[in-house]
C-alpha cells in the first residue's frame, strides 16, 4: 500500500517560504500571482495491503510525527499502487 500525507501550515500561521516564492514569481514578471503557500508531503510505502488499516496507521503517523498540530494541518490520501 502507498499513502500520501499532505502537511500545510494552518492558514493563521504566516508562511515565509510561500511568501518568498510569491515575491520571486512577481519579480520574474508573473504579476497575476496573488499568493503562494508552500506545503510538504510524504509518500509512505507500507507492507500489507488492507486499505482501511493502512489509512488508520498512516493517520496515526501523521498525528504523532509527521505534522505538528500547533502550526500544521494534514490530510491523508491512499494511493492505488
Amino acid at each position, binding site marked *: 500500500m502507498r499513502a500520501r500525507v499532505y502537511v500545510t*501550515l494552518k492558514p*493563521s*500561521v*504566516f*508562511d*515565509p*517560504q510561500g511568501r*518568498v516564492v510569491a515575491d520571486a514569481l512577481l519579480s520574474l514578471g508573473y504579476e497575476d500571482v496573488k499568493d503562494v503557500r508552500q506545503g510538504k508531503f510524504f509518500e509512505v510505502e507500507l507492507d500489507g495491503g488492507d486499505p482501511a488499516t493502512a489509512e488508520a496507521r498512516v493517520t496515526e503517523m501523521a498525528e504523532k*510525527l*509527521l505534522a*505538528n498540530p*500547533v*502550526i500544521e494541518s494534514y490530510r491523508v490520501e491512499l494511493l492505488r499502487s
Partner: protein
Amino acid sequence: MTFAVVVFPGSNSDRDAAEAARVLGERARLVWHKDTELGEADAVILPGGFAHGDYLRTGAIARFSPIMGAVADFAERGGPVLGICNGFQVLLEAGLLPGAMVRNRDIKFRCEFVPVRVDQVDTPFTSACAPGQVLHLPIAHGEGNYYAPPDVVESLEANRQVIFRYTDRSGAMTEGSNPNGSVHAIAGICNAARNVVGLMPHPERACEAPLGSDDGRIVLASAAEAIRDGRFRARPAAAASR
C-alpha cells in the same frame, strides 16, 4: 555543580555547552540520547545543533529519544532545564514549552551577534541578571521564528513567561531588531513552573571575550548560583511515582 548535556545524533553545540560550563568552573557531563537515565545532574542542557538533521521539523524526531523521558521527569520535579536553539525546538516539540518554530521570516539561516533583552529574572537561568539587561549573544538558526496561537501568546505575556526578547542595543524593540520575525520579538520563554527555559540565541558560545562576547556567562552562572543556594533544585525522584 553538574550540568548534564544531552547529545542527540546531529547535536553540534553539545561540546560547546560543556566547555562553557567548564570555563565557569562547573562540571559538565555528556549524556547520550539513547540512555534512559540522566545520572548525576543538577541542571540539564539540551544543546544546539541539527538533531536528526532537522529533516522533518526541528526537534520533531529528537523528542522521541529514550532520554527525553528522564528529561521530562527531571523537569516535572522542578529541575532546571535549558534548551538552547535546537534544544529549545526539542522542548517545543516535546510539549515541555508551548508554541512552535517556523522558518525565519526571510527563510535564510542567520548567524550574527544580536542584542537580547532579559525580561524576567525569576528563572534559574536569569536569576543573576538585572531586569532589562541587554546581552550581546550570537544567533545561528534558520528556524527561529517563534509562533504560538494568540491566546497562548497572551497567556505567556500575562504570566511573565517571555524571558528573552530581541531588541536594539538600548533594549528597545524596533522594526529592525527582530532578526527572524518571532511574535512579540520572543527570543526565549519558560514554562509555567519557570524551571524550564528555552531560547534561540547561544549563551554558551559567548562565554569568553575573544569569541566576541562573554555576556552569555550569566545564563549558566545564574543556574549555578541558584542551584547552590537551593532556589532551583529538582525534588528527589518519588519512588512512589509509578
